[in-house]
């Protein structure tokens, strides 16, 4: 299994407000077992940036040996990413983490709920689920019309409901406003997005089996530094914590405290 690679940037272009889509090519594309895993990307020249940036895998095209990622420019690291030109190489560790569990998931009706830059990993997941003969309903939430991306791609894979906070695209509101209507018809759900959204989604979906992908600031990204822990729900859990980079980023909604 590949652990590090200098991947070549094939494309790096704006996708939505402050949001960019990058296609990387390399052998690594043959070794991405799960959706929801991430690449741990080295930033900058020399020693300015010591911490890598975790970015989820949006899509994998093993024939073309390509991996797509989508990132939002929020600080120094993603600003640097944005400036990298096709042809240049990025050093990545990957695939890291445990992704969305889909083994044996077949002929189910499944809800995907994504918010903002939590949307990307759901795309590869959706494709996997459909290949396994599941029916997928997606609810995508964004701040505003300009921030929306991939809504058409998801629409091609099944029912897709678009929600924006300011109502400039799709329905106005938050994703959780629209979940109750699906609650009774689905078998399970997967979600990724800001912490507040995850909390609201899991609360709303209380009784239904679900999986969520968490974010936390990372040091090593490989499980060695204990920077990225979260607490377990079970007070009798012998460790009491999980490492998001190694045990996650995807957890069962019941496993961890948000």
């Amino acid at each position, binding site marked *: 299994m590949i*652990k*590090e690679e200098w991947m070549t940037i094939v494309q790096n272009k704006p996708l939505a407000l402050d949001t960019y889509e990058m296609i990387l090519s390399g052998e690594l594309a043959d070794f991405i077992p799960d959706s929801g895993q991430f690449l741990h990307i*080295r930033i900058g020249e020399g*020693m*300015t*940036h*010591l*911490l*890598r940036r975790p970015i989820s895998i949006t899509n994998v095209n093993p024939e073309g040996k390509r991996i797509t990622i989508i990132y939002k420019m929020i600080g*120094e*690291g993603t600003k640097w990413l944005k400036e990298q030109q096709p042809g240049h190489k990025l050093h990545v*560790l990957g695939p890291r983490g445990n992704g969305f569990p889909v083994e044996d998931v077949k002929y189910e009706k499944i809800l995907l709920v994504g918010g903002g830059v939590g949307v990307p990993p759901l795309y590869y997941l959706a494709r996997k689920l459909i290949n396994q003969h599941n029916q997928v309903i997606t609810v995508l939430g964004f701040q505003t019309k300009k921030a929306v991306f991939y809504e058409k791609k998801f629409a091609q894979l099944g029912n897709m409901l678009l929600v924006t906070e300011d109502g400039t695209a799709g329905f106005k509101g938050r994703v959780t406003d629209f979940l109750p209507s699906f609650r009774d018809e689905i078998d399970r759900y997967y979600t990724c997005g800001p912490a507040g959204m995850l909390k609201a989604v899991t609360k709303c979906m209380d009784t239904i089996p679900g999986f969520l992908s968490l974010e*936390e*600031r*990372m*040091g*090593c*990204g*490989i*499980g*060695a*530094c*204990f*920077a*990225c*822990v*979260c*607490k377990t729900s079970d007070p009798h859990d012998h*460790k*009491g*914590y999980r490492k998001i980079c*190694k045990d996650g980023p995807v957890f069962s909604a019941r496993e961890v405290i948000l």
Partner: protein
Amino acid sequence: MTDLAVSIPGLQLKNPVMPASGCFGFGQEFSEFFDLSKLGALVLKAATLKPRYGNETPRVAETHSGMLNAIGLQNPGVKQIIQDELPFLDSYQVPIIANVAGSTVEEYVEVAKTISQSSNIQALELNISCPNVKEGGIQFGTDPKRSANVTEQVKKVTNKPVYVKLSPNVTNIVAMAKAQASAGADGLSMINTLTAMKMDLNTQKPVLANVTGGLSGPAIKPIAIRMIYQVRQEVDLPIIGMGGITSSEDVLEFLLAGANAVAIGTANFQNPYICSNIIDELPSTLEKYGYSSVQNCSAKGVTE
């Protein structure tokens, strides 16, 4: 052939390079990347008496050529470490140094006693310098008398050599080192992180949940070099040097300034192969600058 071997109390190192405590877990994760037997030694993450969850998250932040951490000594406790973590390392040919932490002198003593019973451990590193816990750690590490007392008490309960890890957050590092020499320390590890902080402009709050954290990485290298150089001029104890090492040239700089061996912390996060790479490059770097062995260059730059 460049001779990389170093011998310091209790430790016959095949090369002077080890990972720094807390930046390499208990080794397992890095064994995915390279053969741990390559390392000069392996320093474990800090052990306390009871399991500790550590601080709330966020626990790390990036700074210019550095990072902040406030892990807060999360660990499963010394007994679980011996039981769950050490067996994995049995299959590697590498001396292991246990990093010992505590909130009270008694805790240091208990942890040291317990872990000393493990035959897999070749030496102890007393972490009296962690800036990220309310009690213990840096409280001991900034007061020569209290820090000497920890060492004296620990020395009574262990027959392993004791390296004491000094805090750079002091006015007079030489006084701290001298106090350790008198207290019977077998060696010094220097330096731990500098207490530091970053504000989040969006939330107006400190980025780290713990408010302050420890600054590490290349940003602090010049401070580490200065402190090692000053201590080397006045104290005879062997020194494991650390603080911002990212290359074999950096290793040589630490050796020239007075270190006998070195530890690599933060750089493992940027590049998990870094320890292995540096070990590979060290012979040619030493040769380039005219040295035939590590022992030869140690403290070469220090005028007494």
